[in-house]
């Protein structure tokens, strides 16, 4: 039990690579929370994928005991939040669990779009924000320029920004002092009924589901019976602990404190980020505001490369879903790809992370179909259906109109690439909302259809700007547009996994690009293969793969038989990477690569 005045709760806001995790490591180290010999880089990113990609997917927390220069002992709780737009809701909950933020900006790179989105979340949550300029010891560091940029772009006073080098440890004591003296202590009423926020939860092989909480009011103790206000479920607390970052049992947690509990909860799915935890017997009257159930926005099909792996895939998806409430799945049957799952994700990164984990942790080879957004189809009878898969598009005679999700995209880019960015957004049916400059960097905001962004927008953005642009978005709502389903026929047979929703005005362009790509991706066969893109019964683009005329070994004698047989055996392996469609074999890569546009 710690006095409110001696608690400081904070998060770190930073762009990827700007040094968030390194700073967290240094804070852990210099407060003696973890002995030097136990330090490994990026202690808080626990999943391999997190460490590899340098991103945080799950919120993590660490409790630091710090003796300040004023001689007082403080408890500092750092919540390391997910840094990506896909997890914006999770970020917003984490932000509500703390009172202040460190805004870490690379002193040579400056402010990026992602930094902005997260810093606005912190401002929305009412945080006190301490700017920290990192990598100050690099020759390219320009602290004055970056200070001015923080003031111009974000509107924060950066005159007393803390200058550090997280890598070398320079300035770390100043950061700790700034946390104590510049960030506010939490508020709360120890005598009020228990009100705690469920910040995050995860599955631990030994403990079962672990729930991270922030106590707002009241006191929570081991053995208490608690109620989850959104789900209504009631549990008895088996274990109460703080993370240092390993679990250390604690008897109780009072207002302002952050810790974890276990309560024989079977599945992570049974917990909801943002839920309010209270006592069963003496509950609080109102849950905390802002709770939202997870809502997938991007869908794609996941199919096993080897059809025999379907059961293994089902197993893996079920296991993964236990630990990730934000990801949805249902069985899907594709004529081209066989049995698989239609899965819903919070965004593209979430999709990639889940797919990577399935492939890596469960050793599966997967075919990923083109990501699709959720369309709203308004039927002539007045009903509305959600379309998650273009293959399910109903007969047009019953459809009144379609609406698609739109986003507000924020892109920051050196001004020399601005023209390319504007063209890219324009090509993707974007509407410019805003264009401002800060130094030689432009910040441009666009209203864009999400379906133009989900696939390769980010790749294109990076390639046209040589990686200098940063990008973030939020979903703003649905709008009607002239959308049609484009089907693709290979050898006169429709391939459901390649059908997609497109804007009518862009259909021909996309159809042309698609059939040209497929012509490159599908190997020649012994017969010629027509490839067509069509809307309804009307063909809008066509290519033909000519028949192979000659493929034969000139010499084949006694010494060649073994080599040739082994070559055929090798081709059996290659064939596993192909999908038989009618008489045509389509390489699995084609299903995703066919959709990549060059513009």
């Amino acid at each position, binding site marked *: 039990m710690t006095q409110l005045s001696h608690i400081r709760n904070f998060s770190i806001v930073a762009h990827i690579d700007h040094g968030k995790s390194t700073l967290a490591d240094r804070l852990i180290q210099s407060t003696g929370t973890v002995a030097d010999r136990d330090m490994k880089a990026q202690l808080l990113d626990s999943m391999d994928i997190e460490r590899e990609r340098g991103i945080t997917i799950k919120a993590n927390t660490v409790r630091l005991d710090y003796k300040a220069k004023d001689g007082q002992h403080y408890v500092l709780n750092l919540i390391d939040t997910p840094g990506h737009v896909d997890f914006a809701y999770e970020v917003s909950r984490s932000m509500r669990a703390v009172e202040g933020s460190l805004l870490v900006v690379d002193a040579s790179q400056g402010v990026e779009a992602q930094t902005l989105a997260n810093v606005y979340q912190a401002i929305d949550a009412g945080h006190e924000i301490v700017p920290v300029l990192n990598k100050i010891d690099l020759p390219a560091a320009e602290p004055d320029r970056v200070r001015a940029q923080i003031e111009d772009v974000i509107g924060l006073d950066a005159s007393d920004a803390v200058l550090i080098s997280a890598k070398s440890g320079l300035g770390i004591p100043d950061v700790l002092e700034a946390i104590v003296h510049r960030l506010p202590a939490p508020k709360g009423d120890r005598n009020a009924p228990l009100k705690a926020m469920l910040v995050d939860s995860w599955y631990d092989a030994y403990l079962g589901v672990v729930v991270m909480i922030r106590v707002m009011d009241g006191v929570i103790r081991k053995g208490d019976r608690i109620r989850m206000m959104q789900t209504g479920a009631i549990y008895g607390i088996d274990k109460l602990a703080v993370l240092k970052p390993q679990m250390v049992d604690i008897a109780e947690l009072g207002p302002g404190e952050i810790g974890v509990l276990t309560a024989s909860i079977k599945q992570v799915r049974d917990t909801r980020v943002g839920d309010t935890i209270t006592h069963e017997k003496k509950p609080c009257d109102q849950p905390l505001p802002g709770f939202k159930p997870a809502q997938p926005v991007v869908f794609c099909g996941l199919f096993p490369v080897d059809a025999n792996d379907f059961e293994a895939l089902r197993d893996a998806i079920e296991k993964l879903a236990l630990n990730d409430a934000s990801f949805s799945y249902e069985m899907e049957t594709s004529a081209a790809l066989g049995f698989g799952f239609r899965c819903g994700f919070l965004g593209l990164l979430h999709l990639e992370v889940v797919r990577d984990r399935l492939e890596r942790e469960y050793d599966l080879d997967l075919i990923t179909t083109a990501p699709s957004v959720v369309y709203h189809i308004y039927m002539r009878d007045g009903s509305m259906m959600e379309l998650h898969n273009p293959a399910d598009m109903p007969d047009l005679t019953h459809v009144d109109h379609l609406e698609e999700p739109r986003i507000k995209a924020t892109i920051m880019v050196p001004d020399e690439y601005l023209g390319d960015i504007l063209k890219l957004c324009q090509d993707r049916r974007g509407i410019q909302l805003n264009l401002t400059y800060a130094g030689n960097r432009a910040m441009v905001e666009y209203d864009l259809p999400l379906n133009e962004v989900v696939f390769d927008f980010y790749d294109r953005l990076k390639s046209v700007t040589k990686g200098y642009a940063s990008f973030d978005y939020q979903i703003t709502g649905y709008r009607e547009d002239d959308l049609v389903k484009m089907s693709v026929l290979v050898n006169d047979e429709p391939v459901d996994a390649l059908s997609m929703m497109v804007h009518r005005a862009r259909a021909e362009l996309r159809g042309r690009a698609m059939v040209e790509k497929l012509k490159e991706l599908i190997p020649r066969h012994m*017969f010629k293969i027509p490839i067509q893109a069509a809307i309804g019964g009307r063909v809008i683009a066509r290519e033909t793969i000519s028949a192979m*005329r*000659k493929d034969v070994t000139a010499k*084949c004698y006694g*010494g060649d038989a073994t080599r040739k047989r082994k070559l055929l055996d090798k081709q059996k392996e290659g064939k596993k990477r192909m999908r038989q469609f009618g008489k045509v074999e389509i390489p699995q890569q084609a299903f995703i690569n066919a959709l990549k546009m060059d513009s």
Partner: protein
Amino acid sequence: MKRRARLAKTCTDAKVDLGEVEDWQVGGFAIYVHWPFCLSKCPYCDFNSHVSSQIDQKEWLDAYRLEIDNLAAETPSRSVQSVYFGGGTPSLMLPETVEGVLDGIRRAWPAANDIEITLEANPTSVEAGRLQGYRDAGVNRVSMGIQALNDQDLRKLGRMHTAKEALAAYETARSIFDRVSFDLIYARQGQSLADWRGELSQALDLSPDHLSLYQLTIEEGTVFAERYHKGQLRGLPDEDLAVDLFSATQDLCEAAGLPAYELSNHARPGQESRHNLVYWQGGDYGGVGPGAHGRLTLDGTRYATAQWSNPAAWLQAVRAAGTGQRTREPLSAEDRFAELMMMGLRLRGGIDLDRAARLRGEDLPQRQIHDLIEMGKLQISDGRLAATEEGRLVLNAVLRELLV
């Protein structure tokens, strides 16, 4: 089209009741002897050949004899239908060495009455001088690596002889042997359809009984492959021209009375290479010499064997262990079926369907066969499955359909 419809009968394996004999006996039994040395390495060749000036032929003969005795101990009570000296350049062997090897073989197995004994020879005047010696040693067929009939292309192919020299060597060979075959390589750099028609007509005017006509293939690990990948091997024919060159070859040879009995081999009926038919018809063969491969059916199991490739390593192994065999791998029913298809569909006569099904131990891939017949790549006639001319041109793809 008449040509496609008609299946050559001359070289099909006879219907055999396999209740009484083993599968390999359909193809017969042959011995391949590999001489691994050349005077120089040709830039297109990926065979196991080495350039060496210090060769003790007595030492090699002893090793060959040891290997032959070892092989004979494993394969008693067979007769040999064919012996083939390949290389490398076997015409660098002394006639005494060839004689010694053949003597060893005759001591080891009874020879078939019509045994074919072939030796590959380079058409140089030096080697022409040894031809009589080979004949006296027992060789009854030579296969000459003429490769081209114009000097410019011969130089590009790295050959050490001129066209004139080659023709003279050919005439010498004809005067000594009843059966002389020669090889030509076509689809060469810058070769037009008219060029090849002219050159092939000239070759046919020499009235050979057997011709091996290979389209130039760029094999990995050769000098040509190196140049090819650097973009320095220009003027190779595109696919359409390669198809036209192949078709012209079929037409000209057929008209001259030498139809293709195999993808790249043409013969007057009755003059087919019996040795190579052993390979294509799934017979057994013993491989003797560095890098030589074999197929041996022993106690009902068929093995793929291979000898050490490196000449020094092979010699040492034979001396130490009595055999230069490096690997011996049992073949599954699936493997044997695959090899029968791979080899047998190269023949105009194709394969016996009953035999293929027996070998596989289960039904043939009916749907694939049906589709390929529909596409005009395969045909069935008299219980035999064969590739059409169109099918032979894409035989690798046909085999992928059937076997992969």
